[in-house]
């Protein structure tokens, strides 16, 4: 350390002032101050799905939903990633799932998102567990006022018109109520969780 280096403050001590008054150079006297700045972060990728997700996306073009079963625990994961996250093993079997399930949890958004004019507040995002699946995944509940959505509500996929189908999860426009009796959920602490011993 050089001899003329000033002695450092205790880094844990609060600074003398958090927002001291500043003095400006003559050239900025009377200038309207800038108080905020927009600093967008943007990352543009070309996304390539792996084998399991490619199977899932190709099936989507036929309005079918594919999950994959773990050979060790029997659990079915959707969308499939090719592995069982709990057993740490490759999934062993492709399983076709119904396009019906129930709302395990949900959230109502009342604030618009810039550049997503398709999402008109208020709207309901839900964690939907498909019949035959061991885990939920994210979807929009549509064709129902958000205030009417409830945990346990039975829903079915609303698909795009056949002529607009692509190899994309966007083929499912959302999930609408089936009108069936609600799924009975007794243990709210289990919502959104899965354990190795779960079926």
């Amino acid at each position, binding site marked *: 350390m050089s001899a003329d280096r000033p002695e450092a403050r205790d880094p844990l001590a609060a600074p003398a002032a958090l927002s001291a008054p500043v003095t400006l150079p003559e050239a*900025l006297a009377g200038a309207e101050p800038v108080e905020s*700045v927009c600093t967008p972060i943007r990352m543009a990728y070309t996304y390539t799905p792996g084998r399991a997700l490619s199977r899932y996306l190709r099936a989507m073009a036929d309005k079918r939903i594919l999950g994959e079963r773990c050979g060790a625990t029997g659990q079915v994961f959707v969308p499939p990633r090719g592995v069982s996250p709990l057993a740490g093993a490759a999934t062993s079997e492709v399983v076709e799932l119904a396009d019906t399930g129930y709302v395990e949890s949900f959230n109502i958004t009342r604030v618009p998102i810039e550049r997503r004019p398709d999402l008109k507040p208020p709207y309901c995002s839900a964690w939907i567990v498909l019949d035959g699946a061991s885990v939920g995944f994210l979807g929009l509940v549509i064709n129902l006022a958000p205030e009417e959505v409830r945990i346990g509500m039975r829903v079915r996929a609303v698909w795009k018109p056949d002529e607009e189908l692509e190899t994309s999860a966007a083929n499912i426009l959302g999930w609408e109520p089936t009108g069936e009796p609600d799924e009975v959920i007794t243990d709210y602490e289990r919502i959104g969780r899965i354990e190795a011993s779960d079926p």
Partner: protein
Amino acid sequence: MSSEVLQAPLVLEYPFTRSTGPVIGAFLTGLRDGVICGIRRADGTVLCPPQEYDPLTAEPLTELVEVGQAGEVVTWAWNGDPRPMQPFDRPFAWALIRLDGADTSMLHAVFAPSAAEMSTGMRVRVVWRTEREGHIADIAGFEPIPAVETA
């Protein structure tokens, strides 16, 4: 089943707006008005870009001062393959530039025709954007000052 590999564009974007505070705010106010500010430390040296606190003593800094609009390249790296949203659509240099009157350097782009035209210690001057709003991009970049002008 098709063997064609699926792929799709995926953009992650966060349109943050952050508040600047008085020091960075003054720096950005200056850029909007075509003035570059540094900030003076207790020993008289000037940090540019300005910082809110002294990096050695952690004391708050308050005395903003105007620095020059030309300076010297302290170090640089050639960017031969600019990406979208970078300062220039042709190859350019990223450089640390110490402006006249400042004791520290700031990162910005130097518009040189080729890497062969870049050297440590070369003189450069600011190129302002015509439309300015109070953002580091109000400085389009820096351009080399021909030797005949610096001689």
